[in-house]
């Protein structure tokens, strides 16, 4: 239990640090949302000054930070100037869409990577393994931006998949089942881009982790005892290889988050990515801070999930011995 408690505390301090960091960055900003407003002849200088005061932009950094923390405890996370609403509800809607994308992609990527990695490790050196190694190398060298643009072009030219957005026109009039199908159809392209970008790293790690165990003495002993290949692989080698893979699972969430930022923008998926980009262009201070923080929360949550899994799988950790 101490292990988990320590992780929670760590996560809390990480979030605190991340918010402080983004606030520090924001003091670097040469302008803000209201500077644009001041250029607008229809808005009087007094109004701008009043708004600035209302949002405490004139106060020093510690005061602003305290104010912001206060608003976080009230579930607002500051105020969006551009949307004229509290930030948290804005982010929630977008974060849900991002989560839908990344969770699906993470699961799918792992479902594909595990069998491929296992196949590759057990057939090391054969033609199929080498072909897989080369294709993962090729995919690894193809960044998300390139992948998603390429997929988009294919989709646009063939018309096989819906492109752009999350739902079709007339979504509101569909039945529940049709709605699910519609969203799923729109998810195909972004999820494909994300899975393809995450796949090579996962396959390589699965292969490496398993290959290491397949060489281990305990496995040769077990094989000498006459255990079947199947038992050896799934009951012994895979279990022993699980630890680094579970840690990797936590990190893969983070990688997919960063990846989804691009994919969302390219495929105009209404997630955190496009919102963050808009906010950057409009200098919508608190939305940017909120967006960065939300992504950090997801990443921490992913790592925490991995820790929980480790705790469940590895008795050494339950016993309190440091295994990593």
């Amino acid at each position, binding site marked *: 239990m101490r292990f988990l408690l320590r992780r929670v505390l760590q996560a809390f301090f990480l979030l605190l640090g991340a918010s402080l960091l983004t606030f520090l960055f924001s003091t*670097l900003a040469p302008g803000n949302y209201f500077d644009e407003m001041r250029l607008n002849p229809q808005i009087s200088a007094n109004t701008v000054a009043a708004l600035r005061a209302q949002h405490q932009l004139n106060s020093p950094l510690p005061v602003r930070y305290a104010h912001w923390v206060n608003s976080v405890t009230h579930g607002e996370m500051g105020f969006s100037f551009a949307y004229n609403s509290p930030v948290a509800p804005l982010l929630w809607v977008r974060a849900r869409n991002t989560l839908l994308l990344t969770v699906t992609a993470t699961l799918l990527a792992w479902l594909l990577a595990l069998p491929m990695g296992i196949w590759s490790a057990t057939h090391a050196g054969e033609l199929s393994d080498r072909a897989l190694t080369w294709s993962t190398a090729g995919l*690894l060298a193809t960044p998300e931006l*390139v992948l998603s*643009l390429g997929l988009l072009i294919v989709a646009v030219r063939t018309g096989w998949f819906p492109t752009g957005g999350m739902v079709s026109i007339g979504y509101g009039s569909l039945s529940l089942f049709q709605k699910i199908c519609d969203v799923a159809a729109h998810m195909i392209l972004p999820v494909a881009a994300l899975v393809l970008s995450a796949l*090579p790293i996962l396959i390589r790690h699965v292969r490496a982790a398993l290959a290491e165990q397949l060489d281990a003495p305990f496995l040769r002993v077990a094989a000498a005892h006459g255990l079947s290949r199947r038992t050896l692989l799934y009951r012994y080698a895979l279990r022993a290889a699980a630890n680094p893979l579970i840690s990797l699972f936590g990190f893969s969430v983070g990688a997919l988050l*960063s990846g989804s930022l691009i994919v969302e923008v390219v495929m105009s998926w209404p997630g955190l990515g496009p919102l963050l980009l808009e906010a950057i262009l409009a200098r919508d201070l608190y939305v940017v801070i909120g*967006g960065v923080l939300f992504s950090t929360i997801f990443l921490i949550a992913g790592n925490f999930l991995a820790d929980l899994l480790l705790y469940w799988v590895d008795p050494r950790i339950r016993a309190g011995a440091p295994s990593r």
Partner: protein
Amino acid sequence: MSRRQVTRWLGALAVLHALILCAGFFAPNDPEEQDRERPYLAPVKIHFVDSQGHFHLRPFVYPTRLQTGSFDQFEEDNSTPLPLRFVVAGPRYRLLGFIPCRRHLFGTDGARLYLLGSDAYGRDLFSRILYGGQISLLAGLLGATITLSLGAGIGAIAGYYGGWRDAVLMRTAELFVALPWLYLLFGLRAFLPLTVGPLEAFFLVVAVIGAVGWARPARLVRGVVLSAKERDFVRAARGFGASDRYLLFRHILPQTSSVLLTQAALLVPQFVLAEMTLSFLGLGVPEPVPSWGNLLASLQQYSVLISYWWMYLPALAVVPFFLGYLGLASALQEEGGTGKIEEAPGGSPL
């Protein structure tokens, strides 16, 4: 075996970089010269057989003209074939940035050659890809240099002095590692000026990229320094009265070189990608200066996406480079015996 692999990858990368470095020679046209008469020209077809069915050893192209009754469709003018010539005189440029020159590897006499088509302003895409590589690769290399010097410095201080310095620096590093790096990059970029000239934008991007990634190399360097400072020859040197400074620069930092090299091979593609992403979204290097990122920006318009597929070609230019760098990284890791496998560019800081 592995050393040979390292040299092989280094050789491949050297060839690729030479191509970009001498962009002026390999590009047939000036990257910023417009031709408003020929927007979105498709990649030129290179012929060997003319309209009479005769075979020519020297490949040739046909000049393009507007189709009659159309304003955006082009057709080939079969009457005047333009033979491709090598080492031909063309527009002036400066080789390596300072040698005035006007010879190009290939080109045609008379008309401009659009090997990979043209963009909205009739600029030659092939030349822009080559010149764009200069910006993107330079941003990646400079960014990696900044990051690695930051990382090596911070890691060395943390590892060598230990104590509160170590605690503070490593907690900060953990923070930077915990943030999804692309979001961090955007967060930092958000608070810097939006509309700047190409040169300022370039340095801004490099600075932002360089500032974001230091944490991972710093942690690795710290680990190496921790073990290096306890090695016998270092302790002996300390016993002879060597100063901290001398020990660090003479004995300890050289031991981090293989870690730093591997990190460099991983960071350069990641940072090239960062520049591409920022420029693609209009937060990086602006027009008319080409960069791999802003060459792709036009694909954000649906009309371009659907009708002008060749505008996607700049995206493919990065693939061989990334393949080279990632291959180099894994060869270096194999040689270093760490046995770790590489990450994707833009992947998580594992």
